[in-house]
């Protein structure tokens, strides 16, 4: 039993665990789909067991407050990362100007098996946004205007973008490079009620050359179209992506017929009429939730403070000892020189 405990808490096992973790880290680089997460989980488990055993039994750690704090901090980080993976939530959402967020809008959802949160209660609505570009299409600041419903039920205006996410109930919404235009279309069938819908066009300006899409209104047939945009985009000059400064023509392909619609225009198609109401924008958001973030920060900072305090105590002691040795060496050298 004692031998087993010694083995579990040994520094040699720490080194083996670290070596395995180094291998695992190298394999997981770039997050390749074919590499299982076990390449990290296995060495981290070994290190966690080793840390627990060392903290409990190794007097070189548990009798030194700084080192103890550092190792507990490390253990806490390992445990919290594990808890974070089990409870996290990540997704994307495309929000059109005027749209209110609902949980059903989230796409590419990845979440831990124990995720539980209040995403269904998150309430915010998308407004217009602008993105600055420097010459050669180097992306600058993104300013996304949104409205958030507070506890009193009032809508509050906010501007988010780049490194300023919207944070509600622990869910963090980040603007992304993925954004574009959205024509608002109304289908007025010969018989029945009109249907209004939005169609998100491919990301702009990334797919400036490929602004085509199609729409199938409820009870109608597929309508193919492309969007001719006048955004003022120039490669050699600074430019701002802003729907309010953008002209657009919706080009509808109806068999052999080509129809150009400006906002407010409509055309007759087989079975009804299509009206191009207006041009809006859509913004792609990344949603991130990890309830351990704050605790991870705290645990890692406390760990480093522990290591620093241990260092300070040890260094001052060794510094004094080394100075003493050096002084003694100098004294003996001087004595030898005098003798000579």
């Amino acid at each position, binding site marked *: 039993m004692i031998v087993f405990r010694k083995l579990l808490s040994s520094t040699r096992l720490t080194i083996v665990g670290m070596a395995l973790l180094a291998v695992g880290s190298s394999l997981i680089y770039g997050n390749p789909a074919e590499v299982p997460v076990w390449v990290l989980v296995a060495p981290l488990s070994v290190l966690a067991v080793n840390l627990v055993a060392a903290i409990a039994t190794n007097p070189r750690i548990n009798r030194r407050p700084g080192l103890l704090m550092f190792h507990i901090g490390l253990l806490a980080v390992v445990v919290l990362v594990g808890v974070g993976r089990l409870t996290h939530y990540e997704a994307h959402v495309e929000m059109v100007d005027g749209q209110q967020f609902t949980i059903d809008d989230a796409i590419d959802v990845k979440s831990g098996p124990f995720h539980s949160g209040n995403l269904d209660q998150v309430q915010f609505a998308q407004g217009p946004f602008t993105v600055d570009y420097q010459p050669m299409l180097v992306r*600058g600041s993104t300013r996304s205007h949104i409205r958030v419903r507070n506890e009193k039920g009032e809508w509050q205006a906010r501007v988010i973008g780049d490194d300023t996410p919207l944070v509600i109930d622990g869910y963090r919404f980040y603007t992304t490079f993925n954004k574009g235009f959205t024509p608002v279309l109304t289908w007025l069938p010969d018989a029945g009620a009109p249907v209004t819908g939005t169609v998100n066009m491919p990301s702009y300006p990334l797919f400036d050359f490929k602004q085509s899409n199609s729409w199938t209104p409820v009870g109608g047939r597929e309508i193919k179209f492309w969007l001719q945009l006048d955004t003022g985009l120039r490669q050699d000059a600074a430019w701002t992506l802003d729907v309010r400064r953008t002209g657009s023509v919706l080009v509808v392909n109806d068999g052999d017929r080509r129809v150009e619609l400006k906002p407010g225009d409509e055309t007759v198609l087989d079975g009804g009429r299509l009206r191009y109401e207006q041009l809006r924008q859509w913004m792609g958001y990344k949603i991130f939730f990890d309830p351990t973030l704050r605790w991870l920060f705290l645990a*890692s900072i406390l*760990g480093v403070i522990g290591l620093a305090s241990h260092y300070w105590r040890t260094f001052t002691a060794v510094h004094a000892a080394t100075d003493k040795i050096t002084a003694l060496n100098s004294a003996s050298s001087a004595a030898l020189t005098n003798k000579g």
Partner: protein
Amino acid sequence: MFSEATEMPWLWAGLAAYALAAFYAFRGIAQQRVLAAGTRSYEGLVLLFMVCGVVLLAVSLGVRWVRIGHGPFVNLFELLVSQLFSLGTIYTLVYWRLPLLRPGAIVSLPIIWVLGLWVLMIEPKDAPFPPTYYNDWLWAHVGFGKIFLAFSMVGSGLAGVILLRWIGWFASWLRHLPADDVLDRYAWRFMVLALVFDSLMLIAGAVWAQDAWGRFWSWDALETSAFLTWLALGGAIHARLAWNVPIRLGAAFILIIFVVAFMTYFSTPFISEAVHKGVI
């Protein structure tokens, strides 16, 4: 107000000052071989030229900052010049405050000069400042990283002296310097200190990445490389505790860790296509 032509002479003058500091460090060690131990008149000159180099590089960085409107955080040229400044500043402080460690200058100053030669071969292009770089955590991340690298370099300087003593020609040059065990103890002190700042760099970087890209860790090239450096440093410190690692082997460990850290800084961000590559 300023042009590229204004900042470059300050940079060249700063590099020249570092070169003179390195020259006097070598000359001093060579003189000490023939003079009595403890004769250290050259150290004042080394310190003087180091201070001059730091001041001249600060002017070069300042002029460029005013000209392009942002700090030296984006491209390789800016990264190298700012490292020359920060490594020089921290090394000068260590050289001034810890006389016992001054012999390490014959290794540390040439390391600084490797960066100096490299920067001379790079075009001093301007690069746009990404919007996610207007984040205060950038300063913490970069600042801690610079202190980490500087302390690793000090440790490597001492480790380099230990290893150079192995070579017959250098052995006679360096025999008046403190004993290997003294240098070894100090070298590892600096490596533990480097671990503290490496950890702080990783923490600050994770907080910044969470704000900037919506994730605190993603195993991109730079993150993986930085984590491997941290593991190597932590592993080496544990190995030294677990086994009676010979002083020269320990010194070799230190140099290897420094090389890994150096690669993380100066090559990984610029060969990777991942988001975390300097320009977003």
